[in-house]
């Protein structure tokens, strides 16, 4: 019968492999965790300072050189977002563990430090197939659209003064477009799966998207009016004295709520509502396709708090200790400030996730149209008015 040899005493013993908490070495754990942070920081520096410097040194900076440089930077950013996702998934699980009086991942790697790497590798080795009822093309397109449109937010986020890939004059409009697009991916994925749960998830994604996108646009307008620019770099520049959160308090609150909705994050996680729709729009996805939905979610979990910081909390502003802005050291320091502020907001989001139950989607819709949009309009007019008074 069995091909597995039965041991003498008829018991199969588990191997005590893995990182034993009894023999834990705190310095090792700290080291592994700080590796993530260091990797993150190094990637940021390398992307925004290293690659341009390299191309400068090569003297390859016109025309195609520019494109290649950007492509290289995008690849770096992809690695960065992988690091972010690994870090954030781990952070989420560890933090949920903490507040739930348990530990979360802790045996694979010091204090669970490499758990998410295993998860990623596993997903790489997992079958990924298209169900018969699905529309093949759209089914395959959806994860890519979702991921790329989340990922493309990176293009305009300033990590430090001048550390942006596309410091465009129209950054804000671009952001709205991209966030609509990411809902698009979810909608497509859900609707093309040929699965009813996914379809309901897609419907909800659509409904949710149309309800938070408008306040989002109005909040962006307030920010643009107040800062006199749609370039994220300039918006941050304008906050040198006072952070936008003070004059733009109403838009700030609305923005936090909308970004929770855009993130599909508790309390607004209707499209994937684990306990209602099984897994929502990604029910039929497995393996790498699913991984990209997952990745997109966590990249957004970094980027949307980052945008909160950019718009309302002074971006990369912080004491520079006499460093000349624009130099490598100053950039590194500024990106550190930026990341720390972002981390605080990520933590708040995780905290919300740990606490709150889920709203009902029609309640969000009504909330959005009857409370958030009037408030956002009011906020916009107020911002314009204050801008005139205080100019």
């Amino acid at each position, binding site marked *: *019968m069995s*091909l597995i040899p039965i041991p003498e005493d008829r018991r199969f013993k*588990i191997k005590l492999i893995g990182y034993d908490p009894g023999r834990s070495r705190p310095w090792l754990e700290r080291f592994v965790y700080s590796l993530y942070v260091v990797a993150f920081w190094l990637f940021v520096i390398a992307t925004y300072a290293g690659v341009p410097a390299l191309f400068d040194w090569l003297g390859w900076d016109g025309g195609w050189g520019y494109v290649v440089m950007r492509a290289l930077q995008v690849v770096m950013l992809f690695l960065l977002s992988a690091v972010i996702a690994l870090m954030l998934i781990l952070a989420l699980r560890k933090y949920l563990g903490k507040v739930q009086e348990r*530990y979360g991942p802790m045996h694979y790697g010091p204090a669970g430090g490499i758990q998410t790497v295993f998860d990623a590798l596993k997903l790489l080795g*997992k079958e990924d197939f298209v169900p018969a009822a699905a529309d093949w093309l759209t089914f395959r397109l959806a994860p890519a659209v979702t991921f790329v449109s989340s990922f493309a937010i990176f293009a305009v986020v300033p990590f430090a003064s001048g550390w942006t890939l596309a410091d465009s004059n129209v950054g804000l409009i671009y952001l709205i477009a991209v966030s609509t697009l990411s809902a698009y991916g979810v909608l497509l994925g859900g609707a093309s799966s040929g699965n009813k749960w996914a379809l309901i998830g897609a419907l909800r994604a659509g409904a949710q998207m149309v309800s938070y996108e408008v306040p989002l646009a109005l909040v962006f307008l307030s920010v643009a009016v107040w800062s006199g620019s749609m370039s994220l770099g300039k918006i941050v520049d304008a906050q040198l004295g006072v952070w936008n959160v003070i004059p733009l308090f109403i838009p700030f609150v609305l923005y936090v709520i909308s970004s929770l909705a855009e993130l599909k994050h508790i309390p607004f996680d209707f499209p994937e509502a684990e306990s209602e729709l099984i*897994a929502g729009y990604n029910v039929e996805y*497995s*393996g790498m396709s699913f991984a990209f939905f997952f990745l997109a979610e966590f990249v957004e979990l970094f980027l949307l708090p980052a945008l909160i910081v950019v718009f309302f909390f002074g971006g990369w502003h912080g004491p520079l200790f006499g460093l000349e802005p624009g130099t490598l050291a100053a950039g590194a320091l500024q990106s550190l400030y930026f990341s720390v502020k972002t981390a605080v907001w990520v933590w708040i989001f995780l905290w919300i996730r740990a606490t709150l139950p889920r709203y009902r989607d029609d309640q969000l819709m009504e909330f959005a149209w009857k409370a958030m949009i009037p408030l956002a309009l009011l906020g916009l007019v107020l911002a314009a008015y204050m801008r005139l008074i205080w100019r």
Partner: protein
Amino acid sequence: MGLLGSDERPRDIILGTLDDLINLARSRSMWPLTFGIACCAIEMMATWDPKVDADRFGMFFRNTPRQADVMIVSGTVNKKLAKRLRRLYDQMAEPKWVISMGACANQGGPFRHGYSVVEGVDKIVPVDVYIPGCPPRPEALLQALLLLRDKISDRELRYKRPQEIATDYDVFAEPGEDGRIPVL
């Protein structure tokens, strides 16, 4: 077949190493399917509670079979459920494993004399690890999950599934005209 072997041994050293690496990752990140059936399901949930906390080993529930790796059959499988269970198993993406939890799932347990109960879930799906008990305590489930982990990552154990695939489909009703098993 892909580059990685699935049931037979991998072909050469490089791919073998890659295969080992991926299997290591698989064994360290087993996501069970949320599929509580009976009493044992409560203990299955308790395996993720603060006291035992299987999440320490990187396991958390996925609701959809497409994303799950391990199916924990936690309770009595009767003939009505059997088709659904097999269907869920079929719908899981490869590679996949099954843990049979508790007396009922193993061989029908106390209810095996009844007319409605499938005597052992291994008649429907290939089972990798069995847990005795009624219900097994959460630590026993954790032990089984870790046995499964060793089985996945250990080359010697990996390529020997205890039973290749279910052979006895008597528990199913006759397939209908379209070749499918009728629903009710």
